C-alpha cells in the first residue's frame, strides 16, 4: 500500500469559536455590491471587458479572499423546511380496495364509510359487492360483512379499506377490532398502521408532535360514487348472476 501519513487527525471536536464567519454578504439572496475599499476587483471597470493588465490582480484577489468562504454565510444553511411544494390537482380514475401501505401515513374520511356484504370469489381473486336481495339468498358462511373506510395518503392516493365486522353469531377478531380503531384514529390525525405479529393486532403510529400536519385532500365524492368506482363491474344485484348460480351449484 502507498505510504500512509498521519492516518487520523486529532479527534474531531466542536469548534469552540463556531463555524467560520462570512466575509461578505454576497451570497445572501441580495448579492452585495462589489467591494468599495481597496479590493482589487475595483480595478476592473465591470462595464468594459476585462483588460489583460488586470488579470493578475483578479486572480490574486480570488486567491486572497477565499471566495467559497464569502459565499457561505451561516444564514445559508437550512434547518428543515424551506419550500412549499405545489402540486397539480388530479383525479384518480380507479379506487383500489385494500389497506393503506404500512409505510405511509394516511387519513380516513369521517363522512365516508359504509357497511356492506362482500363475496371473495376465489376463482378470479376478486371481491364482489352483494346487494341485500342477493345476500339474503346465500349462506352467511360464503360472504363476509365489512365496513368500508375511505383513506388518502400524502400523495392524495385514495383507497378503500374493508375492515371486517362481527358475524351474526358474534364471531369477532382482534385484528378487525384494532383495524376499526386505526381508522377511527385516522379520522382525526395522520397515522400509520403497523402489524403486531405477536399480538395479532394493528398498532397505531402517529406523527411526531413537531411535524406540522397538512390537511388531507379527501375525494369530492359521495360514498355511493366511491363504491361504484371500487366495485365497477363487480356488483352482484341479481341471484341470476353466474357467480351466485355457481355458488348454489346451479351451473
Amino acid at each position, binding site marked *: *500500500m*502507498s*505510504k*500512509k*501519513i498521519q*492516518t*487520523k*487527525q486529532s*479527534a*474531531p*471536536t*466542536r*469548534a469552540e469559536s463556531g*463555524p*467560520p464567519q462570512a466575509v461578505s454578504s*454576497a*451570497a*445572501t*439572496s441580495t*448579492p*452585495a455590491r*462589489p*467591494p468599495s475599499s481597496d479590493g482589487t*476587483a475595483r480595478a*476592473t471597470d*465591470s462595464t*468594459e*471587458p*476585462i483588460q*489583460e493588465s*488586470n*488579470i493578475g490582480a*483578479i*486572480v490574486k*484577489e*480570488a*486567491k486572497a479572499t*477565499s*471566495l*467559497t*468562504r464569502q*459565499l*457561505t454565510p451561516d444564514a*445559508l*444553511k*437550512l434547518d428543515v*423546511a*424551506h*419550500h412549499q*411544494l405545489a402540486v397539480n390537482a388530479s383525479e384518480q380514475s380507479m379506487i383500489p380496495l385494500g389497506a393503506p401501505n404500512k*409505510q*405511509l*401515513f394516511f387519513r380516513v374520511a369521517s363522512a365516508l364509510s359504509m357497511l356492506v356484504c362482500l363475496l371473495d370469489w376465489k376463482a378470479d381473486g376478486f371481491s364482489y359487492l352483494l346487494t341485500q336481495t342477493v345476500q339474503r339468498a346465500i349462506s352467511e358462511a360464503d360472504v363476509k360483512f365489512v365496513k368500508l373506510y375511505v383513506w388518502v395518503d*400524502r*400523495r392524495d392516493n385514495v383507497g378503500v379499506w374493508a375492515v371486517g365486522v362481527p358475524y351474526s353469531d358474534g364471531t369477532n377478531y382482534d385484528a378487525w377490532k384494532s383495524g376499526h380503531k386505526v381508522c377511527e384514529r385516522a379520522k382525526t390525525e395522520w397515522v400509520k398502521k403497523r402489524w403486531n405479529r405477536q399480538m395479532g393486532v394493528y398498532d397505531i403510529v402517529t*406523527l*411526531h408532535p*413537531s411535524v406540522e*400536519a*397538512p390537511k388531507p385532500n379527501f375525494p369530492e365524492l359521495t360514498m355511493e360514487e366511491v363504491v361504484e368506482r371500487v366495485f365497477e363491474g363487480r356488483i352482484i344485484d341479481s341471484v341470476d348472476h353466474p357467480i351466485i348460480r355457481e355458488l348454489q351449484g346451479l351451473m
Partner: protein
Amino acid sequence: MLNLEGYKQIWLVDFEFGAPEGHPPAPRCVVAREFHSGEERRVWLDVDQPPRCPPYPVDASSLFIAFSAQAELSCHLTLGWPLPVRIIDLFPEFCRMTNVHRVKHGRSLLHALRHFGLDAMDSEKKDWFRDLALRGGPYSETERSELMAYCAEDVRALAVLLPKMLPYLDGGRSLLRGHYSRAVAAINVTGVPVDARFAWMWNKHRTELRQHVLRERDQDGFHDPSGTFRYDKAAAAIRATGRVWPRTKGTRRYSLAKDVLKSLSEGHAPLERLYELRRLLAAATGSDFVVGPDARVRAPVWPYSTVTGRNQTNKRPQLFGLPSWMRGAIAPAPGHTLAYIDWGQQEFGIAAVLSGDNAMLSTYQSDDPYVAFGIEARLLPEGASKQSHPKVRAQLKACALGVLYGKTAHGLSQDLDITHHEAQQLLRAHRRAYPTFWEWIEGVVTFADIQGYALSRLGWRLRPGPEFNERTFRNYPMQANAAEMMRLAAGHAHDRGVRVCAIVHDAFLIEVPSVAIDTAVADMRSAMNEASTYLLDGVTLKTDVDLIDDTSRMLNDEQRETWEWVYAKLEELEQQATGQ
C-alpha cells in the same frame, strides 16, 4: 429567487469547443450576451493566438450565467483566462427543480427550454453543429460564422430561459452551486496522471491478455478451455457455501452482476478469486484507456447528476470505476507526489451530528467507531479491539453502515451470512445504543412523506416519485449532505490553489511537486475541515491521507499481486510482439 439588481452586468455565455478524448477542451468560439442591454460579443478562438482575456468582465460586480458552466470554465482555464467570481449555472438549478425520485427527466438545455414551453432548436441541428465544433479546424469563413451564429442562438436561449427560471433560483445557495463549477472545471482540465507505458501496453495487448488470464488465473476451472463460463461449476461453488445464487429478473439466468458476485464471494476464497477473475476479464474486454498527450486521464466530472446531488463520472476512462487493482496505473508525474485524502466514516459522522445523537457522535469520535459501537451496545467487552474481535467488528461495521441505508434484517443476514435472528439482534443493538438517531431518521422519512420533499442543508431537494421509497429518503440526509460537503471542500481547495486531480466519492486526489506535498496536504485537509465544520455547525470530521510517490502505488497487497501479474504479462506480450 435570486436578486439580480446587485450586479452591474449579467453575462450569458456559451462556448463551442472540441473535446478530443483525454485532452482538455479546445475552444472554437465564445459568444456572450449582456442580459439587460442585449449587447452581444462574439470571438473566434480557434486561432494561433487567441485573446488573453475574456470579452466580458468576470469580477464580483458581474454575474456569469451558463448552462453546465464547468464546460465554459474549462475553456477559460485552457485559454488562461481568469475564472468568473460570481456564477449561476442553470444546469444544477434545472436539475434541482425537476429532481424527482425514479422519474427520468431530460436535463439538457433543450429539455429546460421545452419544460418552460420555449422554442428550442431541434436536436438534429444541434448535433450537426456540435459535430462541427468537435471536428476541429481548419474552418472556412462560412463555417466560422455559422458556428458562431449557432453559439449565439444558445446564448439567446439562455436569455429567454433565465427570466423563467429566476423564481426557482435559490438565492445564495444557487450562487454557491454555481461556484462549484470553478473547481469542477479545474479538475476536468487537470486530469489524473497515469503510467503511460502501462496504458499503452494495455490498449495494445488487452485482447491477448484475456487468453492468458483464462489460462493462468482461473485455477478453480470456472471456464472451459474455449473461455466459456461454467455456470454449473460456479453454482456448485456457491451451493457449497450454503448461499443462494440470485437470478436476473428478466431472463431468470444466474446473475453475474458485479454487486451480486461481490456479495456472494465475501469470506470464501474460491468465490473471491472468481469475482476478481470476472472483473479482470471484464476490464480486458472493456474499453481502451484514453490517455492525453500529457499522460493524464481526463474523466469529466458531471456535477449534480444524481438524485442526491453527488457527481457522476463518465465510467469509460474513469480509473476509479475499474477493478481496484487498476488504480496501480495512477502514477504521479516525475518529481510529483499524489495524495489521496478522504473523510473517515463521513456518512456515519454526518448522521451522528444531524441526528443530535451524542452517543453516536462519541462513537464516531473514537479511534475505532465500530468497536466503540460494539462496546456501547454491550456486544463487545470493554477493551476490545479490531485485533481481538475481527469477526464481530466486521458485523458491527456492516450493521452501522447498513442502518444508514435502511438495511433490513433480511439484507443484513444475506450480506453477513448470518441468521435472520442474529441480524435482528444486531439491528436491535444499534437501536438500543442510538435511540436518538432512530427517532430522528424516522422523522426524516416522515417529513419526506408528509411534506413531499427532502432537503440537504444547502437546499438540494428531492421529491418522491409516484411510489414512495422509504429507504431512499432514509439515506438522503447522509448522501445529500456528504455531496454538499464535497462541493464546499472542493471550492475551498480551489480557493487555496490546491491542484485536485479527481473527486472519488468521499475523497480527493491531489498532485503537487514532492517538495511541497506537506503544505498541499495541510491545505487540502484544512479545506475539508472548513467544509465539514461549516455544514455540521462546528463539528470537524476526520480525514485520512495516503501518499503515492514514484516508488508506491494506490494498492493493497492483494491488488498489488494482480497489478504486478498484469504488468509483467503485458511486458512479456510486448517483448514477444517486438521480437526482443
